[in-house]
């Protein structure tokens, strides 16, 4: 019988446990209902990134598998726009809220104006949103995305523009570089929490054709192979900011989630593992609870940042 309190607070998003999902690996949740009760299990779900207007995403090929427990994707934020998203998934996502699962809606954009417009539309149309995650780190779109979060100044500008548009908590999804410096800038600009890391830009070349295995020269690497890099970046960022972090990157076990928490993460998102092992979230949660109990704490919050160096 688990007696550890698992509830955490991600910048105002009160989660019954630390488990969240990495945007883009989890659809909008309903696809997993055949595997477990999503609303009764997760602390939060982070939905697929959505812009003010629909985006088609990138042409095929969007996916490559890499040896060494990793994949690359170049989906490019295919989405139906905020209106389409709310029409199709709003009732389902409200149902998740009713079961105690927080719903984090992701904001995508090509420009500051587009981030603002998407946030305004969510505010108008998405009462089910517990908070927002502003994606300034997608490596797979030509304009916006990672370019918006490439420097502390650019990242802060997006955050300052979005901040007055909503009273709800705003998390910012960060790219895998300069996380301490950019994290501080985002904190100063009013971010309630940070999530990191997004996929790591990589390349995979077909040496016979001399072309990329994907439709674009570079794409985002994810999966267990990047876990150690993500833990390091969470640790670096945690030392630089006071706002809570959501650790993302190659988590596929309770041990991996525990590493993120020890490095300084308040919440932990499961990403690529959902794709190849869609039953993994309840197992990871049980393993995490068991670990916390074995650590002899009453409350999992006691373990956040408890890494000893």
């Amino acid at each position, binding site marked *: 019988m688990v007696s550890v309190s698992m509830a955490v607070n991600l910048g105002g998003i009160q989660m019954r446990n630390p488990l969240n999902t990495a945007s883009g690996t989890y659809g909008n949740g309903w696809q997993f209902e055949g595997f477990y009760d999503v609303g009764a299990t997760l602390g939060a779900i982070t939905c697929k990134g959505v812009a003010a207007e629909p985006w088609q*995403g990138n042409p095929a090929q969007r996916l490559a598998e890499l040896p060494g427990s990793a*994949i690359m994707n170049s*989906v490019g934020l295919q989405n139906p726009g905020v209106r389409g998203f709310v029409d199709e*998934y709003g009732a389902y996502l409200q149902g998740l809220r009713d079961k105690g699962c927080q719903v984090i809606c992701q904001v995508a954009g090509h420009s500051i104006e587009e981030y603002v417009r998407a946030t305004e539309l969510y505010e108008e149309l998405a009462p089910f949103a517990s908070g927002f995650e502003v994606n300034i780190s997608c490596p797979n779109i030509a304009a916006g995305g990672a370019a918006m979060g490439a420097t502390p100044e650019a990242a802060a500008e997006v955050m300052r523009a979005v901040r007055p548009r909503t009273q709800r908590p705003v998390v910012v999804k960060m790219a895998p570089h300069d996380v301490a410096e950019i994290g501080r800038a985002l904190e100063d600009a009013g971010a309630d929490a940070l999530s990191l890391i997004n996929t790591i830009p990589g390349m995979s070349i077909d040496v016979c054709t001399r072309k990329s295995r994907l439709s674009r020269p570079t794409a985002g690497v994810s999966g267990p192979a990047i876990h150690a890099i993500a833990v390091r970046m969470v640790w670096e960022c945690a030392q630089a900011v006071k706002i809570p972090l959501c650790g993302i990157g190659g988590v596929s076990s309770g041990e991996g989630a525990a590493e993120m928490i020890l490095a300084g993460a308040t919440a932990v998102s499961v990403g690529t593992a959902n794709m190849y092992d*869609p039953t993994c979230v309840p197992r990871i949660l049980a393993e995490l609870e068991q670990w916390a109990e074995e650590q002899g704490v009453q409350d999992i919050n006691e373990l956040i940042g408890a890494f000893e160096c």
Partner: protein
Amino acid sequence: MRQSSLTQHDFTVISNTQVAEGVWRMVFASEVARSIEPGQFMNFEVPGDGSHILRIPLSFSLADAAHGRVVIYYAVVGEGTGRLARMRPQEASTLLGPCGNGWRLPADTSKRALLVAGGIGLPPVVAAADLLAAAGVGFDVAIGLRTKDALAPTLLQELELFQDKDTQVRMATDDGSLGLHGFATQAAEQLLSERDYGSIYTCGPQVMMAGVAKLAEERGIACQVSMERMMGCGFGACACCNVALAAGGYALCCQDGPVFDAQEVAW
């Protein structure tokens, strides 16, 4: 948004043998046999190598709900299918399924259907034959292969289970070693010139299906195509397996397909 009925099932290998050049046939026991429909697919976790994380999506030829058995065929083309070929009887793993949307009966069941298969696209076409036969729809089959050694005799035997006395099976090979020296589309064209069809069902290489879609469009015959894409999840979560649509934008092969109306697809 639709309801998701797919879940994870265990499967246990009953037999797994090479049946043609580069082609393996596996019979396995699984509860998925009771819910999977012709043209749907499953996403297999193949043991033996933790460094390759993605599952392998495969369609099937026969599903025996009464005995909980499924027959799949696969071409060994890479590391993952190589591992699948090394699974031995009694060995077990998991699969996700039933995935996607399968074949649909034609609007007009009074006319014959033409089935066109290329290479390893034949197994799901056998499943289409099963669906059609159960509804009393007669069919003919055009099969294209690289060479005669690539033909799995068991697939022809399975097809025979659903044939009627009028069924014609017309073969074509790239090297002329069996049947017509040419492509499945040429065999299909012959049949189209000889008989009247109300529907066409096809699975095979994309270039072949594009040709079949064109034949169907020219003749005003409804055509269903089973598309193949590399997949991440197999159930709509990752959006990696996009299929370009004639109307613009993309559908997801795993969730919106793998069976599409040929007219929907941007060839």
